[in-house]
């Protein structure tokens, strides 16, 4: 039994309650469940050598693609293995790598609220979502950084690239990923050892540590990983799932947010095991269709596949202003800039967008959001901007300064050509050609090389570099 999962020998057994002891926040103790914890490296094994780089994994387990059914359903077996990988204190760790003077110091990244904090900062009770003012009160010596979204993206992409050496099915988020490992034992051998090699490869390559959980489905893989954070590795087998879940707090169950937890606690249901007492009909009556999911999940069942999403669910760009503002030129300028960035990201994926949503946050904390769909999917700036500006003007009706503005594009389609009425075709073609030309210029010289229309009003008030305007709180979500 050890507090450091890295020091455990191969297949060392760690009781769940010992794992919880490392995390004082976990108030409930698990039943005595065996977790296989971090595997010692094979002597003499090179960090990346064990990942069988260059091995045609796709040839053995099928080609990657969103339409392919999950492996466990293809093979007809019920021994599914999903790996959940989470980058420890992602933004803060990168900042500590970039500047060694920050090592060992409490570091937080964020503007307004904490987006990420180092483990040194967490010792003072700081956590994501906490207002910076409170963070300063709790830890006066904390180093606060505004963040470098572009740098974080590069590190995440490199880590996900390494993940793809283990499986072709990798579903990525900003700082975490799910890997479908079912059937890959034939390539990698023991999956716990293969995951340990992946973790080492990531650390050697990027200097970052990751926490990995292996489980029979996504939900359990993520949950078991949480018990060994940071820099840990744990595995949960299917037959251990029910015991593992029984004593966990109800809030830890995927799909149980603050509101659901409040409802369930008011019924004196405090642990995931307690939830099993409710029949499916009751859960459905309480929470609608998601109640059926909760019924399955509290029994350790989760059939959601790992999908290498080629088409994202949404692309959003948002920021708070350097100073709260009611100046329509500033607000519309920022919205035009954000729409331009979101549309460029959409075009880079050869997608067109159907639905545009604009979100406002006022200086008094109130917020508003409206969404509408375009008549025809498009990815050209003026078309999306026209709808976004319309949404902005409909919502910005209060006589209160704005703190933040954001745009979210969703409902993507693969059709890249902008289609319109017969007599619009020539104009649509010209618009698309203009966007392509601008994209080429920006690819060579940075997004800031071309500033369009209303966004010019931001000059002089918002700092600028080659990558564009330096936003106060760039989107730190994928």
């Amino acid at each position, binding site marked *: 039994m050890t507090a450091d999962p890295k020091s455990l020998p191969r297949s060392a057994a760690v009781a769940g309650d010992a794992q919880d002891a490392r995390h004082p926040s976990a108030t409930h103790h698990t039943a005595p469940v065996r977790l296989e914890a971090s595997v010692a490296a094979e002597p003499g094994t090179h960090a990346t050598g064990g990942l069988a780089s260059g091995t045609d994994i796709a040839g053995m387990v099928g080609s990657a693609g969103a339409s392919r059914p999950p492996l466990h359903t293809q093979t007809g077996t019920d021994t599914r293995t999903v790996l959940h990988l989470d980058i420890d204190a992602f933004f803060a760790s990168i900042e500590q790598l*970039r500047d060694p003077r920050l090592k060992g110091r409490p570091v937080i990244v964020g503007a307004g609220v904490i987006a990420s904090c180092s483990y040194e900062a967490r010792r003072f009770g700081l956590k994501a979502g906490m207002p910076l003012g409170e963070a300063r009160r709790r830890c006066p010596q904390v180093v606060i*950084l505004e963040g470098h979204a572009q740098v974080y993206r*590069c590190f995440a992409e490199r880590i996900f690239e390494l993940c793809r050496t283990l499986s072709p099915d990798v579903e990525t988020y900003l700082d975490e990923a799910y890997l479908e490992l079912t059937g890959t034992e034939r390539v990698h051998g023991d999956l716990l050892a293969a995951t340990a090699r992946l973790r080492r490869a990531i650390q050697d390559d990027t200097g970052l540590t990751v926490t990995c959980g292996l489980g029979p489905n996504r939900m359990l893989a993520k949950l078991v990983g949480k018990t060994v954070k940071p820099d840990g590795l744990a595995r949960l087998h299917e037959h251990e799932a029910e015991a593992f879940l029984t004593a966990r707090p109800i809030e830890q169950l995927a799909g149980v947010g603050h509101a659901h937890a409040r409802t369930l606690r008011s019924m004196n249901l405090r642990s995931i095991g307690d939830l099993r007492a409710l029949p499916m009909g009751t859960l459905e009556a309480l929470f609608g269709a998601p109640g059926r999911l909760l019924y399955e999940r509290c029994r350790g069942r989760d059939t959601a596949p790992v999908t290498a999403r080629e088409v994202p669910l949404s692309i959003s760009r948002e920021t708070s202003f350097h100073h709260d503002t009611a100046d329509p030129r500033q607000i519309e300028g920022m919205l035009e800039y954000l729409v331009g960035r979101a549309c460029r990201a959409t075009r880079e994926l050869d997608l067109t967008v159907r639905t545009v949503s604009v979100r406002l946050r006022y200086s008094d904390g109130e917020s508003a959001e409206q969404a509408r769909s375009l008549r025809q999917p498009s990815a050209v700036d003026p078309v999306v901007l026209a709808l976004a500006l319309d949404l902005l003007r409909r919502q910005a009706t209060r006589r209160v300064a704005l703190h933040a503005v954001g745009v979210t594009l969703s409902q993507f389609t693969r059709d890249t050509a902008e289609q319109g009425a017969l007599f619009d075709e020539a104009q649509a073609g010209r618009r698309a050609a203009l966007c392509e030309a601008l994209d080429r210029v920006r690819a060579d010289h940075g997004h800031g090389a071309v500033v369009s229309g209303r966004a010019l009003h931001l000059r002089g008030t918002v700092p600028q*570099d080659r990558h564009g305007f330096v936003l106060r709180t760039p989107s730190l979500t994928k």
Partner: protein
Amino acid sequence: MKNEALDEAVAVRADFQGGQVTPIAFKRRGREHRVARVNTRWVDRAGKHPRFYFSVTDHNGDVYQLQLQGGDLLWWLDSVTLEG
């Protein structure tokens, strides 16, 4: 910590051994800064050409961000991070 954007083209002495580029020294305003340590490196592949980034500590203990543009092989000094 205060991050100050510099955005200056700089002359860099670098080692290209073993298929990996490592900055050794750079000249700014006529003064040579020897790289005491490469803190971390990353690559941005979003554009047409990759951009190679380096966080380095010079011999004075200051932390700079250098960038090598893959297209034209120009070096840029992006920023310096100051204590305080």
